[in-house]
């Protein structure tokens, strides 16, 4: 067993010994450049430490609280899972990757018939053993301090490469399961690279199963979207009891590319979702959508940052929240328009419904604009269900509950509408109506 962990020490100090153990054992066979990278990332995390609430970007989310337990990041236990996986995947024919606590559990990548040149696998084996040179080029240490912690400690994750001119029709589904008895910090990392004129759709589902202790999952995803490429990334956080998720996605978009993402958080969650999009070429398009339905002590913080670096780009954000119980929801988004990024068209919208007196919503939609020929706007509303609409439905014979659920479903529907994957849409609609009935 591990020695008693001193929870009063700072998080960097607590992790220092563990990081050394990881380097000596788990990461020992890794190439030198990667070890150096990890060390550099760890040093820079130690310098900055965890963000505090004094940090404007973390004003409403207390990360320290999440890290206050007796967690460890040195672990790799085999778990036997008795699960009905069918139910957890959207499509039968998709390429599937299953991870447990940040480690690969099993995948169906070998049996899937993928077009020539396409790589779908995991970072630790497929990536490091076969495509080490490729990873050297694309693995980065940037992002905020929690991303750098991930860069130091990541164990595994999905590795997806789509070569030029390949349109991958089969979606890729990633299932991440948190389980076990130990309080752990799991560091999980994806790398997605889409070449020129390619397209890919990724669905990630996060659940907790048979979990007896608090788990921190620190996710980081790097996405490189080449010229004329189209990437869809759907993240589902469902039934993540006792899991604290910190996720960040860094996207670099080149000319004429389009990136779509939906973050759907359906409760029983503590989640902080960072989305950092850099529009580095002309005519890029970005669509960021999010929906959270919270209850109990849930805490969901959606944080977006879109950087318009080049002219003629469009970005669109729609975030909706339905809050019940004692839950807290946060939307903190920023549109940043560089001096050169003329003819930018950017929109940001955050709409929320509070169902209980103990729930709270904090929104901070921001515009920071340095170019003059732009159209940028944002809107934020918070309110309740329309009484007239309720009355109309009641007068048609609907019970109060079903009228309420119908209206809430329609409210959530705006976000689901944006999803381009039909089976996923149907899957989510079912989940949401189940969730609202509770």
């Amino acid at each position, binding site marked *: 067993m591990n020695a008693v962990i001193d929870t009063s020490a700072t998080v960097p100090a607590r992790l220092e010994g563990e990081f050394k153990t990881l380097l000596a054992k788990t990461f020992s066979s890794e190439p030198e450049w990667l070890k150096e990278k990890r060390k550099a990332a760890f040093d820079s995390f130690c310098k900055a430490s965890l963000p505090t609430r004094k940090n404007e970007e973390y004003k409403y989310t207390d990360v320290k609280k999440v890290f206050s337990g007796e967690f460890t990041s040195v672990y790799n236990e085999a778990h036997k899972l008795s699960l009905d996986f069918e139910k957890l995947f959207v499509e039968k024919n998709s390429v599937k990757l299953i991870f447990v606590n940040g480690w690969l559990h099993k995948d169906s990548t070998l049996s899937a018939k993928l077009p020539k040149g396409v790589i779908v696998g995991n970072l630790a084996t497929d990536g490091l053993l076969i495509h080490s040179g490729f990873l050297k080029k694309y693995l980065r240490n940037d992002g905020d301090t929690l991303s750098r912690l991930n860069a130091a400690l990541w164990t595994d994750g999905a590795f997806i490469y789509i070569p030029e001119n390949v349109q991958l029709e089969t979606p890729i589904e990633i299932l991440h399961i948190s389980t076990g008895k130990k309080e752990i910090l799991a560091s999980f990392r994806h790398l997605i690279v889409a070449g020129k004129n390619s397209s890919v759709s990724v669905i990630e589902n996060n659940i907790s199963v048979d979990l007896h202790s608090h788990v921190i999952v620190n996710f980081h995803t790097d996405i490189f979207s080449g010229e004329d490429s189209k990437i869809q990334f759907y993240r589902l956080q469902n039934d993540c009891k006792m899991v604290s998720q910190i996720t960040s996605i860094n996207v670099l978009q080149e000319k004429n590319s389009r990136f779509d993402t939906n973050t759907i958080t359906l409760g029983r969650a503590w989640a902080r979702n960072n989305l950092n999009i850099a529009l580095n070429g002309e005519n890029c398009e970005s669509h960021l959508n999010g929906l959270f339905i919270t209850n109990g002590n849930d805490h969901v913080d959606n944080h977006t940052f879109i950087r318009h670096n080049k002219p003629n780009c469009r970005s669109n954000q729609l975030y909706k929240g339905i809050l019940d119980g004692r839950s807290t929801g946060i939307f903190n988004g920023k549109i940043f328009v560089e001096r050169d990024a003329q003819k930018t068209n950017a929109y940001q919208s955050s709409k929320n419904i509070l*169902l209980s007196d103990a729930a709270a919503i904090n929104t901070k939609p921001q*515009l920071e604009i340095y170019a003059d020929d732009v159209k940028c706007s944002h809107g*934020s*509303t*918070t309110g*309740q269900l329309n009484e007239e609409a309720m009355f109309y439905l009641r007068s048609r014979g609907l019970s109060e509950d079903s009228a309420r659920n119908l209206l809430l479903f329609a409210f959530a529907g705006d976000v689901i509408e944006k999803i381009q994957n039909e089976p996923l849409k149907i899957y989510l609609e079912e989940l949401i109506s189940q969730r609202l009935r509770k």
Partner: protein
Amino acid sequence: MAEKNDILEKQISSDYKYGFTSDIDMDTAPMGLSEDIVRFISKKKNEPEWMLEFRLKAYRHWLKMEEPHEWAHLEYPKINYQNIIFYAAPKQKKELASLDEVDPELLKTFEKLGISLEEQKRLSGVQSTIAVDAVIDSVSVKTTFKEVLAEKGIIFCSFSEAVQEHPELIKKYMGSVVPYSDNYFAALNSAVFTDGSFCYIPKGVRCPMELSTYFRINTAGTGQFERTLIVADEGAYVSYLEGCTAPRRDENQLHAAVVEIVAHKNGEVKYSTVQNWYPGDKNGKGGIYNFVTKRGICREENSKISWTQVETGSAITWKYPSVILKGDNSVGEFYSVAVTNNHQQADTGTKMLHIGKNTRSTIVSKGISAGCSNNAYRGLVRVAKGAKNARNFSQCDSLLMGDKCGAHTFPYIEIKDKTAVVEHEATTSKIGEDQLFYCQQRGIDKEKAIGLIVNGYCREVFNQLPMEFAVEAQKLLAVSLEGSVG
């Protein structure tokens, strides 16, 4: 293109119109800040013991605080507080009985600024006019119309006078809205404030005229630390105006004022500002640092506080006039036009804190950035738990003129009550080509067309200003933006 350059040239070379110094003998404190200086100021002003205690408490607290540099969208060098003269009073030999005895040099200054006391005096008794509490560098020189107001029981005097004559009111209200520990600059002000205005409207009185103070920063290197306190008792109403201009200076001047407003049951206070301090030259050298704490509280039911501001001056503006909506059915309003040009920086907005039931607030903010300036709106709308049926509507529009400036919007919305209805809307754009085209096609030249469009853009706010100010504000806007768009 040639025409564009002409217009730009004209704008860039247009100098600050009100840059001049008047020669009046000053009685100044030694440079720097220490407990002794605080005692010096207090002694100079012949203050009672409790006042000195308040100042010292604030000073000791201030020592423990840090100058804020983190969160605001502003950049400024660390201020050396030991390089500032904290007290400068015009030397006066005797009490002034009439306007004729006022230093003629001073009167000339006011004339240059376009508001002459004599004019005011001449106009007295004619319809509703403005009562001016003239403040030159920290000490109130002359308060006009005092007698007229006294008849109604209205107290309108300098802050130091109020400390002497109405200590019970000052003790009761000072620091009740902005405590000395509120923020760095409020603490500094509480320690070293020199003068300001005090206004008390008794129960059921509707103030018959617009009250106004006039600030000028005069002695080179003197920071001005004003303190204003306005109290509207039950059912009282007052409209209060504040205007500012300052002479041109090379080094930065610090202005850290505190304004407190208290509105009791059914009371209403309308506070309007036109601010045109020296913004620095076209290279961003010099100019006023305007770090102001303004806050009002609607203490009891049905009270109302309304802020209207037109900000065109100052090198740096850091200002968030706020309303605490504590009483049930109380109303808070904020209307703002902020114009920045050259190298000016502004981080301004409001805070609406809903605590009582059925409270309402409206925020309308119009930002215009030109030149190399940065203009940010930063506002907070907070609905506390139990603030039933709170309603807020915010609209923040930004207009960009030129490709070197920046316009930013940072709203904070925090809601803890399910019955709240809160809406926020913001847009950023430039002057529409089609609007310009339409005007020009009707034979209106470009410059005038821009003026027309910008004035229309700000109309919602100008409509809130008292007549006298609305005219001045429109002129100011025209001067500030002359030809800044090609």
